[in-house]
């Protein structure tokens, strides 16, 4: 993997501008965080189509619903913790329930927010949003994937929650939307297999895809063949790919920058327990709140590094049963 770094939020802001040029129906809303969510780029080029509602997340979501219900494609952005949790009933009632074309794109998901601390972290957003009927939940793995995901959700008609991150993180894909010999080929609801491996499959989402690829590399040196699948869409979850991985490798590890309850691990477990109950281990934040600190140090303290992934792989291999 390259050492090239970029923030998913930057890619989002830049892509919105491009979308805005192509489609005048796109409007963008923010709640006084546009310099951080990067919607300020859109605001600068299309001031008439940008609405800052101030620090008022409930209003943010419902105003977006109003705009979308008369034909606009409304992107509403703020931090995950505010957009998802302060606007939740609004999102459920005026967006999800009536299936309105609002894209809630939040930055500052997870704990990679860093120094701002627990009040600004969001380790519950995936669980909350995927429990709402009609809502598509997407977490791009890097800035390159964020570009295609942003375009894809603009084209898709319906409620979407997309979670992005604050820090600059390693780019997985190259500018040609490829990882090694694999095409990104982004389709909502379809995972991307980044690496094959017969012993175990790592299912990862968001920033944790890069950590998982690193773990697979390290494990290969020890003779363990770990596959890595990028689950960029948590809902609808790619059942087929999960079952294929379960049946072919017989053991899974899920990896997410989220509480181990209700997120990617929960979604995968739901599929497995009904159709292919192979051993799996969830890597994530272990049902606790975070704290202030540099995000890399937080990842180390809260068990979100490639070595934590590798450790989980070794543990699940001990429990592995043949599933054929």
């Amino acid at each position: 993997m390259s050492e090239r770094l970029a923030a998913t939020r930057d890619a989002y802001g830049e892509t919105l501008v491009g979308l805005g040029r192509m489609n005048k129906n796109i409007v963008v809303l923010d709640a006084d965080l546009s310099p951080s969510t990067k919607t300020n780029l859109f605001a600068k080029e299309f001031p008439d189509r940008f609405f800052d509602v101030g620090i008022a997340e409930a209003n943010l979501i419902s105003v977006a619903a109003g705009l979308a219900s008369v034909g606009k494609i409304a992107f509403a952005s703020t931090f995950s913790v505010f957009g998802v949790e302060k606007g939740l009933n609004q999102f459920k009632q005026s967006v999800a329930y009536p299936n309105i074309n609002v894209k809630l794109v939040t930055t500052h998901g997870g704990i990679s927010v860093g120094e701002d601390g627990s009040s600004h972290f969001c380790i519950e957003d995936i669980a909350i949003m995927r429990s709402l009927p009609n809502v598509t939940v997407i977490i791009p793995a890097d800035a390159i994937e964020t570009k295609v995901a942003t375009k894809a959700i603009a084209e898709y008609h319906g409620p979407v929650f997309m979670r992005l991150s604050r820090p600059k993180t390693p780019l997985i894909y190259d500018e040609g939307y490829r990882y090694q010999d694999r095409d990104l080929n982004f389709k909502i609801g379809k995972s991307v297999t980044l690496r094959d491996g017969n012993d175990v499959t790592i299912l990862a989402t968001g920033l944790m895809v890069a950590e998982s690829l690193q773990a697979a590399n390290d494990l290969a040196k020890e003779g363990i063949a770990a596959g890595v699948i990028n689950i960029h869409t948590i809902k609808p979850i790619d059942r087929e790919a999960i079952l294929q991985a379960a049946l072919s490798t017989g053991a899974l590890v899920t990896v997410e920058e989220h509480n181990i309850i209700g997120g990617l691990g929960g979604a995968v477990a739901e599929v497995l327990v009904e159709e292919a109950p192979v051993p799996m281990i969830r890597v994530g934040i272990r049902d606790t709140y975070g704290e202030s600190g540099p995000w890399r140090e937080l990842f180390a303290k809260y068990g979100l590094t490639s070595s934590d992934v590798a450790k989980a792989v070794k543990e699940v291999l001990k429990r592995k049963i043949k599933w054929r």
Partner: protein
Amino acid sequence: MAPFNEKTAPHDTGLIKKLTKVALLIRRNSLIMTTKAASGHPGGSLSCSDILAAIYFHQLRHDPKNPTWEGRDRFILSKGHAAPALYAALAEAGYFPTEELWSLRKIGSMLQGHPDMKKTPGIDASTGTLGQGLSIGVGMALAFKLDGKTNRVYVLLGDGELDEGQVWEAAMAAAHYKIDNLVAIVDYNRQQLSGCTDRIMNLEPIADKWRAFGWHVMEIDGHQMKQILDSLDEAEKVKGKPTVIIAHTVKGKGVSIIENSFLKGECKFHGTPLSESELAKALEELHE
């Protein structure tokens, strides 16, 4: 497409008589519906019946034969629990047959306990969880202004609903964006679910609050049809700011059982329908 209503009609006795008759029908059907459903909110349906009659049978540009007509004005019942009155108005306007009213709150019905834009023709926003309608209206009004369209947006709020902080977020935003194609109407019947608004959460000075938020404020008797019509007309002339009409109303208006119950400080008929025998008495009172 020709608008359904006769907006050009003068506010003469003929029009007022017509609308008063519609309001009476809305009241009657609201009570019959809720009694048949054995649930629902009669009190707050009766307090806004005159306003709904004025909206749907005079003010709003809409076409019941073409509920998704893009040129229509939008109406949002933010106090969604008054759905029976809205459904009665929509049925009378011709969005669906009157017989549908008797399916209110029954399983499989197009008429949900609270307004549902996906299930009921003529409903522009799904509401029922209080505090959101004005924000949705702000979004719609912004979209119309952005596109240079003349559609107007009307939002009917409950008075108790003003306890919700989001209403004031929306009020601030509407003034900030100088949204003059938006009219809020407050059904100020001074009663909320568990008691009178003065006791549960004082709203006064209500007009000053809206004025301080940058709105053009009017206060009317929400049961005087001419006042309702005149205020809606005045709202159309206000430029550069949103308008709120504070309609002083009576919860259960027109039905002594309900009016007196609230006067005695009972809150029974906020969310409880009349019994069959109470309904019979009420319908005797609701005549021209």
